């Protein structure tokens, strides 16, 4: 490990804790982590979403003496979870906005608002978009997903400005919302849904639900058409029943075996063509294309030929590169789904594993739970849960645990689950970033 002179705004309390953790002498000089010659280590975390922000915070919780640097280009992070509520006119963008103040001020994470552009795994260095190079002892990548441009003929970055994916929240969410607001009554909202694996399996169907809810109220002659590259989707039975109950025949779903797979997009004409030549015209077109791990993962050498990142199940360390840990949507962690909940859960396992590794002790056993809440309507919530452990060297669902909301639940239960969905969102955001930007926890 190299000596590092770090300028960092730590609170006195954290400094004292750091010293206490090293259980040694009073602070000497301007290198707070060079206490008595001991280095707790430096961990760089790339990506400030559910995975990265959680990893940064929990690393500090595990050992405040570890230097944690979080690299995230955005100063405000908009969550994909609950962004469908913005699309449906139920929440403003500030209700899904989160900042990094608490990570910096309360936990002593050093946040750098830049992009990580390159990783030299052998030299243990990350290069930032500012040109700066940072050494690391351990690296955590939580880069989310990137769209596979041109996997659908005609759907590239430029096309996404006309036919948004809104599969990364923020400007794309607002763009799609404004298109929906401008749509004439009687129009069709067409959504192109991808094949597995992709970020957030129930996401497209929650989006269709909340768009339908909006249309029912404000543009009642309008329809939703989902063209799917799959024959089955997450919570399908629950969604289908809910759609019928709440929206009648407003939502039409066309699966793979009924020629639902789209192969070509014309973003200028808002037209899509399926595998067997059927052309659909949209008034608002939402294309959710095939995806892959965020591109920095490929730069770091941790992706395989599938474009995703294989990891060791016990610690989420890369199978291909030592000292790089990867969490969240970018990983191959099946049967764990690609969800914010899982990214947060995986990040905690990684934080514990890295803290242990830096102290040369074995990592604790891994535990993960996932709960995906979806709103079929504002007062109609459904969920799927899973509890995961490592069994026989692979991640497996614990038998007898997890499962779906009941098919025959009462209206009250659906309403309660919708309430818990909000409670979940508030809690996970508090756990990941601290209180939301506006300070509101509603």
């Amino acid at each position, binding site marked *: 490990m190299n000596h590092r002179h770090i300028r960092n705004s730590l609170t006195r309390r954290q400094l004292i804790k750091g010293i206490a953790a090293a259980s040694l002498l009073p602070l000497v000089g301007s290198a707070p982590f060079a206490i008595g010659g001991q280095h707790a280590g430096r961990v760089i975390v790339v990506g400030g979403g559910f995975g990265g922000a959680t990893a940064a915070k929990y690393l500090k919780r595990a050992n405040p003496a570890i230097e944690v640097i979080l690299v995230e280009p955005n100063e405000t992070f908009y969550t994909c979870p609950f962004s469908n509520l913005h699309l449906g006119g139920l929440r403003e963008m500030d209700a899904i906005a989160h900042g990094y103040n608490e990570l910096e001020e309360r936990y002593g994470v050093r946040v750098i608002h830049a992009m990580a552009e390159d990783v030299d795994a052998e030299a243990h260095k990350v290069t930032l978009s500012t040109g700066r190079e940072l050494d690391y002892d351990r690296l955590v990548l939580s880069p989310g997903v990137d769209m596979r441009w041109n996997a659908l003929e005609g759907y590239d970055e430029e096309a996404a400005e006309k036919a948004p994916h809104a599969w990364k929240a923020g400007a794309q969410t607002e763009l799609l919302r404004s298109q929906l607001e401008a749509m004439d009554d009687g129009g069709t909202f067409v959504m192109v849904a991808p094949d597995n694996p992709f970020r957030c399996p129930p996401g497209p169907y929650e989006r269709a639900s909340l768009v339908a809810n909006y249309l029912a109220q404000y543009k009642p002659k309008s329809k939703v058409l989902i063209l799917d590259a799959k024959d089955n989707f997450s919570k399908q039975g629950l969604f289908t029943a809910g759609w019928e109950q709440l929206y009648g025949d407003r939502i039409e779903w066309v699966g793979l075996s009924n020629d639902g797979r789209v192969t070509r997009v014309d973003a200028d004409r808002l037209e899509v063509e399926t595998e067997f030549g059927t052309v659909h015209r949209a008034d608002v077109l939402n294309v959710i294309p095939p995806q892959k791990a965020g591109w920095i993962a490929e730069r770091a050498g941790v992706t395989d030929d599938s474009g995703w990142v294989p990891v060791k199940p016990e610690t989420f360390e890369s199978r291909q590169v030592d000292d790089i840990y990867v969490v969240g949507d970018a990983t191959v962690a099946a049967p764990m789904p690609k969800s914010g909940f899982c990214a947060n859960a995986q990040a905690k396992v990684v934080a514990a594993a890295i803290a242990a590794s830096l102290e040369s002790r074995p990592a604790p056993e891994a535990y993960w739970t996932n709960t995906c809440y979806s709103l079929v309507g504002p007062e109609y919530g459904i969920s799927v849960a899973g509890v995961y452990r490592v069994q026989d060297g*692979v991640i497996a669902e614990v038998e007898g645990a997890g499962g779906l909301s009941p098919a025959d639940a009462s209206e009250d239960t659906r309403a309660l689950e919708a309430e818990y969905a909000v409670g979940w969102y508030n809690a996970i955001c508090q756990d990941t970033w601290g209180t939301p930007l506006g300070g509101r926890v509603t």
Partner: protein
Amino acid sequence: MHVARPAHYDAARRRLLRGIAAAVAAISLAGLATPALAEGPWQRLEAARSVLGDTEPSTQGLVLDLPHVSEDGASVALTVGFDGELADDDHISRIDLFATANPSPEIATFHLTPLSGKAEISTRVRLNETQQVIAIATSHQGERFATAREVRITVSGCLMRNGGDQPEPLSNPRVSIPSSFTPGQPEAVRTLINHPMETGLREDTNGEIVPRHIVERFTVRLNGSTAFEAELHQSISASPYLLFYLSPEEEGEAVFEWQDDTGASATHEASIKAG
């Protein structure tokens, strides 16, 4: 009409080519004088051995593309293709697919002719659990090639079954075929038909076994001559999807026929130009 290849199969094709390149590189590095390598999971599977007979297959040239991990064992995309060395007047005439750990290992047998033009087929298969999938190719002159891929099947709770409507058997036949062909240039043809592909292993809500009911045979005739044929078994996913190649020499009629095990059939016709 030129139909864009689904992105999924484009990626599959790139992987196929990379796989071929890697295989060739591996063999050259190993410095093997002859490409024959006998050992493989096909030796341990009786159904595969009966296709091989006494021959030891070469492992060079046949590539099987499957995902490393699939969350839904009911529908796993598969591409098998041959891009190896054959004598000038030889061609791949048969490809067999096996799922080593399925209740019944035979997935499908494809019969190719010179009118196929290119030995590459994509379909969707059912895999019961994590296992090796085996492909064996046989050439017109009796050369044999084999390869295998392991697929991990995880049952994702997120993909719980709809349990909804089963498709109407032999309904909605669909074919995507270029309207004109250049001789010597094989083009991809995609086909799809709705069918439950009932395995005969499933219980209905009363606990009764739902009888087997599958598409058994798919035939493509160009001006009356069989160009491509597939024997399908219950490990082909519901609503069978088949992508294969055709290289017609003259214009005329292409007739596509699906036959199921009740004797019922469905057909689709297309006019094609070649030249």
